[in-house]
């Protein structure tokens, strides 16, 4: 009896383990297909689903976020794909996101890849339809590749022709390769080129130095580069303008004077006025000279008389008869000085 109980316990353990493994496998497979979690339904419309099947993964930014639930053909060109997306992912998918059917790797299962839209877009809600891209089909790729191959073949043929012509010494490149004198010429050219380069380098160094020196203010260019110079020049020009105006006036005056002088000279030449006599009559000049000499001696005498008069006046001041008068005169002078 005890043996039977122990056997039954072991059997129970076996059955429970096996069942648990089966249930766990079903659960994990279902979880990977978003069967048990909270998910929302979204739709995408395609013209060609490229063998997509219910259960295929939905990938958003590289993360598996759900699976294809249903594929229904609405018309001959419109196929609606319904897929479940985890609710916690839904707020991150924008309405301007795009769905594209592609393969997981080169030869993997078909998946629906949701390409994120711009962050400014609104988040999708359950039941929304997101836009889709048509997948680049293999046959289209092969057609493009075929054209590319044809072009490559043409290019290769042309290249082959060019290479043959070069090998046979035709054209510039061919003659460069075949003609040995060109090599010598080239060497010489390179030698000259090196010298020229060295000379150029030296010239450039000098030029550089010159340009550097121009930055200083102690030369013409430096002075020209001085920012205060235009102001000074402007002021100088204004002064010059003012001066020129005054000069014009002066010139006008000078012209007037010259005109007057001219008329005076004309008059003199005509023999009118005193100057004519002064300049043309020598007797008059001699008379004037005598008169001036007489005047000079008369003045000398007057001067002596003045000195003597001063002495007389001084003597008068000391005379008691005239003393009162002079004192009164001094007092009046002092008063005038005090008022001033």
């Amino acid at each position, binding site marked *: 009896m005890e043996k*039977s109980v122990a*056997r*039954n316990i*072991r*059997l129970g353990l*076996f*059955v429970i*383990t*096996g*069942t648990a*493994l*089966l249930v766990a*496998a*079903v659960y*994990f*497979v*279902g*979880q*990977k*297909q978003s069967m048990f979690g909270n998910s929302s339904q979204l739709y995408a419309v395609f013209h060609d689903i490229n063998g997509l099947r219910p*259960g295929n993964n939905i990938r958003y930014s590289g993360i*598996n976020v759900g699976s294809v639930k249903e594929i229904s053909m609405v018309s001959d060109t419109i196929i609606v794909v319904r897929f479940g997306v985890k609710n916690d992912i839904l707020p991150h998918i924008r309405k301007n996101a795009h769905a594209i059917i592609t393969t997981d790797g080169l030869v993997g299962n078909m998946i629906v890849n949701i390409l994120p839209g711009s962050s400014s877009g609104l988040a999708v809600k359950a039941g929304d339809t997101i836009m889709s891209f048509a997948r680049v089909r293999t046959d289209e790729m092969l057609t493009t590749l075929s054209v590319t191959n044809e072009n490559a073949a043409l290019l290769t043929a042309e290249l082959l022709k060019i290479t043959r012509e070069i090998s046979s010494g035709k054209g510039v490149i061919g003659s460069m390769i075949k003609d040995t004198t060109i090599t010598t010429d080239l060497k010489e050219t390179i030698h000259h080129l090196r010298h020229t380069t060295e000379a150029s380098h030296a010239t450039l160094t000098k030029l550089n130095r010159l340009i550097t020196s121009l930055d200083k203010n102690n030369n013409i260019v430096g002075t020209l580069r001085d920012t205060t110079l235009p102001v000074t020049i402007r002021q100088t020009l204004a002064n010059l303008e003012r001066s020129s105006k005054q000069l014009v006036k002066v010139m006008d005056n000078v012209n007037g004077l010259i005109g007057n002088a001219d008329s005076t000279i004309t008059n003199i030449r005509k023999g009118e006025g005193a100057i004519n006599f002064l300049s043309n009559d020598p007797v008059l000049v001699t008379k004037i000279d005598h008169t001036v000499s007489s005047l000079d001696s008369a003045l000398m005498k007057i001067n002596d008389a003045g000195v003597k008069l001063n002495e007389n006046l001084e003597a008068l001041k000391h005379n008691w008869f005239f003393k009162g008068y002079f004192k009164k005169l001094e007092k009046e002078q002092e008063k005038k000085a005090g008022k001033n």
Partner: protein
Amino acid sequence: MSFFRTSMQYILKYLEEVGEMSAFAGRFFRELFRRPFESRELLRQCYNMGNKSLLLVGVTGFIIGLVFTLQSRPKMLDLGASAWIPSMVSISIVREIGPIITALICAGRIGSGIGAELGSMRVTEQIDAMEVSGTNPFKYLVVTRILATTLMIPLLVVMSDAIALFGSFLVENTKGDVSFRYFFDEVFLSLDFVDLIPSTLKTFFFGFAIGLVGCYRGYYCKHGTAGVGVAANTAVVETSMLLFVLDFIAVMVTDIFY
């Protein structure tokens, strides 16, 4: 002419056996729902067929997972598809290798055991004695065994699959430094219900076939003790053939629905 006659005899014999086996299966279904239910004998048979086969099935599954991964790994590396090893191994084991190998092992161990046990009971007239004593030998011996194999084989297959995948993981972990989580994430990501459910359902048919053929060959054993060996041997051979046929039918049916 004699060749044609001999062929016809074989065909007729084969059809007769198919008919008898079908009648045997029909009787099983009839007796299954009739009282009394031999639950204690059923549990004993479940223990014998389930628990006692676990070690053999587990070791086989572990080695299959190990060897399958070791064999496929170099070629997958050459193709630059080593990341696909968990997916490939899991789909192969869960869909096909696990169920068929486990069923074949059970056909060898359980089918031959049933055939030999019932055959010896038949030749030693124990079954006749049971009939005389008023016990229904079919219900006690056949129904319990067929039911036990039908219920235990699926559990053995599930355990065998799990052990095989663990063996595969050990190889991947040692050779490719793949973590436990990554390996089983890849396994469950690549598996679908279309892989899991049909392959589990067909194991019930496998278990039923093992029990049915074993019981049929043992229950109708003839020619004394020599017939016991023949019954055990025929049970294994016929079960193995039937398993492949059933597997083919299961794959075809799965292909139609998915």
